[in-house]
């Protein structure tokens, strides 16, 4: 067993932490990183509830040991909007009932946001494929896709208007 001193930037805030080698990034984010919005679902990298951006790229926080992430910048769904405010994509999920029990929502929104930033013109089927690794057991996905498409359309209108 080995213990390690690591530094992480979580949603812009720098943290210095002692971690055991076997602690996952997910566990450390939830217990000491102040990020309980990152959820433990399957623990095998399949379900997407623990999705975070590591240096801007989506990863399974359950399949990264915290020590491997030393020096990295982590973004969770809370990093999308200033504290206490909702990001427009979060609002779209509320308006279109894209969230029911809410367990998949942080990973779903984070992944959809990451994807649309890179593919602002993406169609419904492309969005569906991008979210294929995020499982939802409530909504049947239709309302999630409605929400993401509504946000995409709003972004495009804002872009045309500006």
């Amino acid at each position, binding site marked *: *067993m*080995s213990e*390690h001193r690591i530094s992480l930037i979580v949603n812009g805030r720098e943290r210095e932490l002692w971690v*055991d*080698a*076997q602690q*996952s990034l997910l*566990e450390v984010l939830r217990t000491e990183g102040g990020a309980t919005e990152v959820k*433990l679902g399957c*623990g*095998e*990298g*399949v379900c*997407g509830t623990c*999705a975070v951006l*590591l240096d801007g*790229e*989506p*990863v*399974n926080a*359950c*399949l*990264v*040991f915290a*020590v*491997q992430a*030393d020096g990295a910048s982590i973004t969770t769904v809370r990093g999308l909007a200033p504290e206490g405010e909702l990001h427009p994509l979060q609002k779209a999920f509320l308006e279109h009932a894209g969230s029911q029990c809410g367990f998949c929502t942080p990973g779903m929104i984070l*992944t959809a946001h990451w994807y649309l930033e890179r593919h602002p013109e993406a169609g419904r089927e492309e969005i569906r*494929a*991008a979210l*294929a*690794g*995020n499982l939802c057991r409530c909504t049947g996905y239709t309302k999630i896709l409605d929400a993401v498409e509504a946000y995409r359309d709003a972004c495009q209108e804002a872009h045309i208007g500006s």
Partner: protein
Amino acid sequence: MYAAAFDYVRAASWDDAVSALAQAGDDARVIAGGQSLVPMMALGIAQPSALIDIGRVDRPRIERRDGTLVLSALTRHVDLEHSDEVKQACPMLAQAAGLIGNVRVRHRGTIGGSLAHAEPTAELPCVAIAHRATVHARSTEGERAIPADELFVTHFTTTLTPGEIITNVELPALRGRQGSCFIELARRPGDFAMVNVAALVTLDEASRLDEARVVVGATSDRPADHSVSAGPFVGEPVDERTAAELARRVAGEAEIGPSSHATAEYRREMVAVLVKRALIAAAGQVPGT
């Protein structure tokens, strides 16, 4: 869902990595992206005494050197999936990489890790064999080049010695009148494959078959090269009838067991269907056809 305790060593260089691995003993494992190893640790299937992290020893690197595509072992699936260099030189490598796991897995998982892990349903081992790739490995004893078809032994077992780490992979690029295709059959996107097929077809001047390499994966304990079965079809046009006959022959010869997702009979049928489709698609990719 929690891994057992282990010692962690972050290697700073390949020299550092191989000596740390040699020191740590036979129960140590190498970790790069960890997208196969960490789930196995979480499930308690793997309990390494130490992890040697090579994640910062090299970076993802894709280089074209004349007729060869040279990849660092730390090249990730997402790098392969979106690289123009890969799409041009080894298009089925980009195709196969895009089918691995989910987008998060593809951002961490590496080609070196996939090959060293030797999971029988994995995509990249099939491509490596079909492309006649060379896998470069090193240990404290020195470096070694291993032809991909000599790497895979059985489930999670390769011919790498306990002290060896894969550093680079070289794949001969498609040349002249060659085309390729990779097809995977799985229950859902990201699921373990029921059948993988990698086909690489070379046509002659008259657009007839010169060589067909056919590798079938996921149906037994390691990917199987069925290129020899194409011998009798050399000189034939790669049409529906030829492709179907060749595919039927491969399916008849392949070692196919049952899996939790499908019976052996079903998988044998699917090998016939997918090999046929892959051959026709690969021939269709040949420039000038």
